[in-house]
Every structure is written in C-alpha cells, then in structure tokens.
C-alpha cells in the first residue's frame, strides 16, 4: 500500500538529512506506529506519505514514495486526497469550516463527490466515529477528544484507504484519548484501513499497533513486531520497562498481558507487612537524602501559595467554583481532570492573571494580582502550555541575556540555569529550532531566573519524549528539594506517578479529590498509571517501586 524506496529528504541549511535511505513497505490493513525521539524525522516521514514533503514543505526528496501505486513525485497532496487522509497535530488549526457536518463534507465537496453519495457518507462517518450527537455543533464548542474525532471523520469521509496521524492523543486526557484510539482500532479492524501514526505517549497506543517503525536521527528501521521492537527501543512505556526489568519474554505490551504475568509477583508482595505498603508520604524507592529533604519540608510546612474559596468565571462558564487549596514549599502537586475541568484556569488565577468573582489568592503572603509584574515574578512563575509564548529572541543566548536583563540578574544567570536543567544547549540556535524538551527547559530557566518560589507548569510533557520526560522528572524533584512549591496541571498519569507527592482532581471547576498521590491515582480507573493497574491492589506506582518492594521481600 505504501512503499518507500530508498527515500532521503534534506532541507536547505541543515547539516544532516531529515530522513536518509528509508526503505519501508507497509501492507494494507496495518496499524503502524512510528516511534522516535523529537526531531528524529518522524513528522517528515509521515508527511512524505501524502506528498506534503516535498510539495508543500520544500526540501529535496530522493528515492521514490509510492502510495497505492501513485508516485508522490507526480501527485500533489491534493491529488492524493481521495487515497490518503492526513490529520494534523492540532485539530483546531486544521479546521476549514465552522460546524461538524460542514467540516466532514468539506473534503468531499473539494473532490466533487455526488451530493447524494455525499449525504450518505456524512451520515455513515458520523456513526463510525460516534459524532451523531454533536453533528450541528460549532467546532469551537467541542471537547478536545471530540475535535480530534471530527478531524479524523473529516478526512475519513472522502473515502481514503490510508490514514496518517501526527500525535493524535498527546493533547487529550486519558479517557478522551481512549475514545480516539477505540475509533482508530475500529477503522483498522472493521474497515481494513491502513493507519500510520506517530505518538509519544506509547503507553496509550503500543498495544493497538500491528507493526512498529523506529526512527532515530533520520534512520528508519524496517517494520518490526511490537514486542520485538520494544526489547531494544530506547523509547518505551512503563509496562515494557517493567517487563524488561523482570526479564519477561515475550514482552507484554498491554496492562492485561502484564497483569497475567505479574500474578506471581503480586502474591509474593502481598505477604509484605501492611505498614510498608501503606507508607504513603515517603515513597518506597526514594533515595534516603530525598526522603530527608521531604521530611524537612514537611516539618516546616510553610504554606507558600493558597486559593481561598476561589471562584472564577470565563464568559458564561464558571471555570472554578469555591476552590480551597494550599500549597507548601517542597511539595509537588499534580492537578488533574478532564479537558476543560479548570486546571489551566487555576494556574492562571494563581499568577493573578484572571479576574476573580469571589475568594482570594495569596502567594508568599500577598495577592499576585496587586503586585507589580517584576515583584510577582519573584514570587510565582508560570510556564504556559505553549512555551514558545515566553520566547522572543533569535538565539538561545540572546534569550538568556534578555531574561537576565528582564529580572535584573547578573549576566549568565539564566544560561547557567539552562545548562543545569537541560545540559548543553547550542547557544546560537533559534529557540523555535530546539527540540520540545529543550524549549521547555529554556522557558523553565527563564521563569526560574525570576526567582519564583512557587512554580506552575501547564501540561509540561506535551510533545516530550521519554528521555526529555525523565530529565524533567529529575529537575522537578531537585527543585522541590530546594524548597520550591511545584504545581503541575497535567494529563500525564505516568509523570504524576513518578514525581507528584499530592494529587488534586478537578471536575467542572470543583475540587473532587485532594490527597497523597499514591492514594488518589492508584484507585482511579482513569488516572492510574500502568504499573498501578498491573500491580493492583499492591500500591506500587512505578517500576522502581516494584523493584524496591521485590528487594525488600527477598
């Protein structure tokens, strides 16, 4: 169906090709997952399939890409629209019309499909993706998961045989992501579509994949069996790293398989005396000095930020209602909840950016809305969901210099912080050309240069690969140990399991749960990390937890 014959892609001004010598043959009816770190050439590979590379992006393509017998050299993306459906990363930015039905019909109108056929196909597509309920709603009013399904429906209606998706679930909460993946699963299994997708959150998708394509530094592997690919892949979900540590062969890829394999281990751990398991504050697997730092912070329990009976309205919607929360120094709090539950609103309110209907916000003893911007930066810092918003300069070094000047720090402060967080970052690179992880690190360094005690991060792992995420976990732990209060708004349950001391769950603007991370997420069907699901009812959240518990038993 898709045939890459020795394909290389290079862009002007880049030292190495974005993709080199890729030879891949994808058969019809397969769900292929493209796995690789950011900047490895995944997106380039995906965009080769429908001819966006090179017709739309420019660059030099060598070799041949044949899709359903058509050569992308002679066929522009628009000529392949009836064969390949391409879903861009952010569905909202790819929408052409205003309402669900019109959006689904748009592609068919452009292709000149007969009106009667079009009418029938729109109805079919609405059913296949379970969108009939929202058919006449404006696209803006839909939830993230619904928008993503509309984006898929919109390309699907034109009747392509191949679907290409670039990170379809990375912006979604776990439940919405499940909806989207279930829809894709149905397309592959019932309709025999060929699906090629890239996704960082492997824990969500790897068990759906038939084949895996590893891409690294522009080199594409041949198609691999998922279980085999995961044995060597640098990027892997927690279930795989648990399997690798415990030397399970073949590697389990889903929670279900792993749970069967782990029944013996659960029995062994069940003999552990209950106090060791119920140890909720200081987590098993922490090094001694980290627990020491935690203990010290807990002893002081200085509340550095608080929201008291906070109510915030956004337009007609009450985004937060009557929220009471206090954050202490040295504590990492994860704020979770559906898309639109009020997580981002809470963070924005904590930096004093939104008008409040009711209640108070206090950060380091004063109301952030009343502070001058400079004084506020010294108390509380927010890394927005899109870190690009904080970056203006042409180069990394200029950005660091500006930040030093902005906050009146001695020259080199931000640069030093950046090196500490991200290791060496090329100083003459344009911030937009950095990897997602490096860009996040740069934004974080700038916020830290302001001297904030309270650090707020909105969805920090969006677009991060596992290495970058591991680095972030390290950085956040160190910051908390230094006495920062860290608040994360996130959908990433694996990150929460690794790093959070405390979890707050919001729903419709109200605090539903507030408690130690271990208690809150281990019991939740939506927010439990993979290891917790595998080990339930043993309270282990991470692979390290399991290994340490096993050490304790033997």
């Amino acid at each position, binding site marked *: 169906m898709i045939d890459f014959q020795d394909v290389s892609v290079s862009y002007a001004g880049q030292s190495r090709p974005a993709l080199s010598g890729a030879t891949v043959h994808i058969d019809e009816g397969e769900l292929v997952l493209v796995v690789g770190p950011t900047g490895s050439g995944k997106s380039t590979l995906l965009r080769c399939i429908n001819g966006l590379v090179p017709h739309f992006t420019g660059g030099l393509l060598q070799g041949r890409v044949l899709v359903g017998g058509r050569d992308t050299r002679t066929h522009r993306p628009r000529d392949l*629209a009836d064969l390949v459906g391409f879903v861009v990363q952010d569905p909202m930015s790819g929408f052409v019309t205003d309402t669900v039905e019109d959006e689904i019909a748009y592609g068919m109108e452009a292709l000149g499909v007969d009106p009667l056929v079009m009418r029938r196909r729109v109805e079919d597509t609405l059913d296949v993706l379970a969108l009939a309920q929202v058919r006449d709603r404006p696209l803006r009013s839909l939830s993230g998961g619904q928008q993503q399904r509309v984006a898929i429906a919109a390309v699907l209606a034109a009747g392509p045989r191949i679907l290409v998706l670039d990170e379809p679930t990375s912006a979604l909460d776990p439940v919405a992501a499940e909806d989207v993946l279930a829809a894709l699963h149905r397309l592959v299994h019932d309709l025999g579509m060929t699906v090629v997708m890239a996704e960082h959150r492997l824990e969500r998708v790897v068990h759906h994949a038939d084949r895996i394509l590893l891409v690294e530094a522009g080199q594409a592997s041949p198609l691999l069996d998922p279980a085999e690919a995961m044995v060597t892949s640098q990027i892997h979900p927690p279930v795989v790293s648990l399997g690798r540590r415990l030397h399970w062969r073949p590697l389990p890829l889903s929670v279900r398989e792993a749970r069967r394999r782990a029944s013996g281990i659960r029995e062994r751990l069940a003999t552990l005396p209950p106090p060791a398991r119920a140890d909720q504050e200081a987590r098993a697997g922490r090094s001694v000095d980290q627990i020491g730092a935690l203990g010290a912070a807990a002893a002081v329990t200085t509340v550095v930020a608080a929201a008291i009976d906070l109510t915030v309205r956004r337009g007609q919607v009450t985004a937060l209602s009557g929220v009471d929360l206090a954050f202490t120094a040295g504590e990492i709090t994860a704020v979770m909840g559906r898309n639109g539950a009020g997580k981002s609103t809470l963070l924005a309110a904590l930096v004093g950016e939104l008008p409040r209907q009711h209640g108070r916000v206090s950060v380091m003893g004063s109301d952030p809305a009343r502070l001058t911007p400079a004084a506020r930066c010294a108390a509380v810092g927010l890394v927005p969901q899109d870190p690009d918003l904080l970056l203006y300069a042409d180069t990394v070094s200029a950005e660091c210099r500006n930040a030093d000047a902005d906050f009146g720090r001695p020259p080199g402060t931000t640069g030093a912080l950046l090196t500490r967080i991200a290791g060496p970052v090329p100083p003459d690179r344009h911030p937009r050309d950095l990897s997602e992880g490096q860009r996040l690190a740069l934004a974080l360094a700038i916020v830290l240069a302001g001297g904030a005690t309270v650090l707020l991060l909105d969805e920090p792992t969006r677009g991060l690969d596992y290495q970058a995420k591991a680095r972030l976990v390290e950085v956040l732990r160190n910051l908390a140990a230094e006495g920062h209060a860290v608040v994360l708004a996130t959908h990433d349950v694996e990150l929460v399991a690794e790093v959070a001391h405390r979890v707050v769950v919001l729903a419709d603007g109200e605090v539903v749960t507030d408690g130690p991370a271990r208690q809150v997420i281990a019991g939740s069907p939506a927010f439990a990390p993979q290891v917790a699901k595998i080990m339930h009812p043993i309270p282990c959240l991470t692979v390290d937890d399991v290994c340490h518990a096993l050490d304790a038993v033997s």
Partner: protein
Amino acid sequence: MIHPVAWWAWGVGLATAAAHTTNPVLLILVVVVAGWAVLERREVGTIDAFRPFLLIGLVAVLLRVVMAVVLGNGVGGNLVIVELPRLALPSWLAGLRVGGPVTIESVLAAAVDGMRLAATLACIGAANALATPKRLLRYAPATLYDIGTAIVVALTFAPQLVELASRVRVARRLRGHAGRGPRELARLVVPVLAGTLERALELAASMESRGYGRLPVRTGRARWLGSILALLGTAGTCAGLYGLLSPSVGGWLGLPTLVAGVALAAASLVLGARREVRTAYRRDPWRVPEWALTLAGVATAGLFVVADGAGAAGMALHSAPLAWPEVPLLATLALALCLSAVALTPVPPRLAAARTRSAVAA
C-alpha cells in the same frame, strides 16, 4: 437554517439605507433593528461579530466629534459652547484651523456623521453574526472561490490574532514586563506574527491534503477571458457601489457603472461555473423567509436611496439652523418591514432549545 445570502442581502440593504440618511432617529432605529435580529436569531455558539462592529462604530463617532472640536468641520453655527485657544499657523496652512470656537451645530453634525458610519458598520456586523462569511463562501461561484477563500481565511484569522496577542501579552507579564506601552507593543509583533503564520501554514497544509484546488487544468484562452471579465466586472461593481453609497459623488452616476459591472461579473461567473467540479453538501433551501428578508432589504435600501436623492424631508439633519428632525413615515415603515421580515424567520434550533431549557428551569 436561513440561507446566508438572504441575511447578507438584508444586512447590506439596511447598511445602504443607513448610509443614505443623517437623521439620528432613523439611524438609531436601524441599529435597533439590526441588534434585535442578532439578539433573537443568532445561533448559540456562533461568534458574536455584532458587538465588536458596534464598538468600532462608537469609536468612529467619538473620533469624529473630537476632530470637529479640535479642527472644526466647516459647519458654522452660532451656538458656541466653548472657545478653545486658537493655534497660530503659518500662512501656507491657511486652510487649516486648530482650536477656535466650538459650536453645538458643528459637534452635532460630526456626531451624526459618525453615527451614520456606526449604523452602517452595525448592519454589516449583524450580517456577520447571523451568517458567518464562511457559510456565505459556500455559495460563492466557482470563479470567485479562490479569492473568497483567501478573504474568509483572513477574516477568521483576525479574531485568532487578537486572541494570540492577548496570550502573548500575558506571557510578557510572566516575564516581569508591564505589557503596556509602545515598546511593549513592538515586542508583541514577532511572536504574534510568527504564531499566526504557523497556524496559517497548518491550515494550508490541511486544506491541501484534503483536496482543495483540485480543479482540472483549464485552457489558457478561457482562463484569460474569465480573468479579464472578472477583473473588469469587479472594478465596475466597486465603482458603481461607491457612487451609489456615497451621496457626495452623486448617486445616479453610480447606477449605470454598477449595472455594467454586475453584467460583466455575471458573465465571468457563468464562464467559470461551466468548469465547476466542486459539489455542494446540503445547500440551504430558499423559501418564504429568505424572499422576505431579501425583498425587505432591497426595498428599504431603494427607498432610502431614492428619498435621499430627491432630498425628501426628514432624511437629513439640518444643523444650521438647529431643529429637531421630523421622522419620515415611509422610511420608518421600511425599517419596520425589515424587522417583521426577521420575525418571519424561524428561531435557530439550538437557541430555541436553550430558551426552552431556561423556561423550564424557571
């Protein structure tokens, strides 16, 4: 759903009427009719374009008044409110006046002039709110489709640009800047433009991969002919409309140009439509309410243009000597016709559902 072309015919008709009167009572009535239509017939969840247009209109009124106070506007009058100190200008600027006496007449004339612009804008805003340009684009003939798409994409990006700008401003404040002042504004430009451009590219990639522009290749001669006809037609239509809308140019001069322009444009459209390959999904039907809206709009516009051209009583405010304007019966009836045409249209489904819900809750 009401056909978008009908809403636009109604809105443009009202706007034309507003442009042809300086009677403040009539202008306020026009805004009331437009506002009521938006309040009662705008579907839940669509963008409310009426408010921003109204706001721009108010700014226009204010600007006109301030200009009249500072620079004068050639309207004499003897009811002096305040005598501003007059700036001595060099002799080669003899035509210009800064400061001097401010009369009620000149301020009033300026305010009414501004109101005329504001009412015109309000009508266009109402049409925007009732039927988005995107919906209108679906009925654009094949020849104009590409240009139409460009305009619509630009129109959608304007509100997104504003949204992005506010987010970047918040981000500036997170870096310890006040986020105000001209230097700050200059620093906003780069991230806002870069962000908007990125979004535009994403949209273009999405459209391209969904088959936009997959027209068959046309022959050179047909394309040339079509383009020339379209160009001449558009120019003629614009010139004609300008002549018709702007009372100072002389309304009757505009009409022949307009007719010729529309004829040429129509010819180019017919030529282009013969090669149409796009098909349409669920076109809105054209029924009684659509006819009512269109006829009311056209009739009102026609009446105002004719009355203004003939200098009928009550169409213009006489500022010197100052007199409370009489309200012409026929024009008021025409506006009432526009209002009742709106009343004929069905309430959009989700708005109706929301109202039932709130009624039940009460």
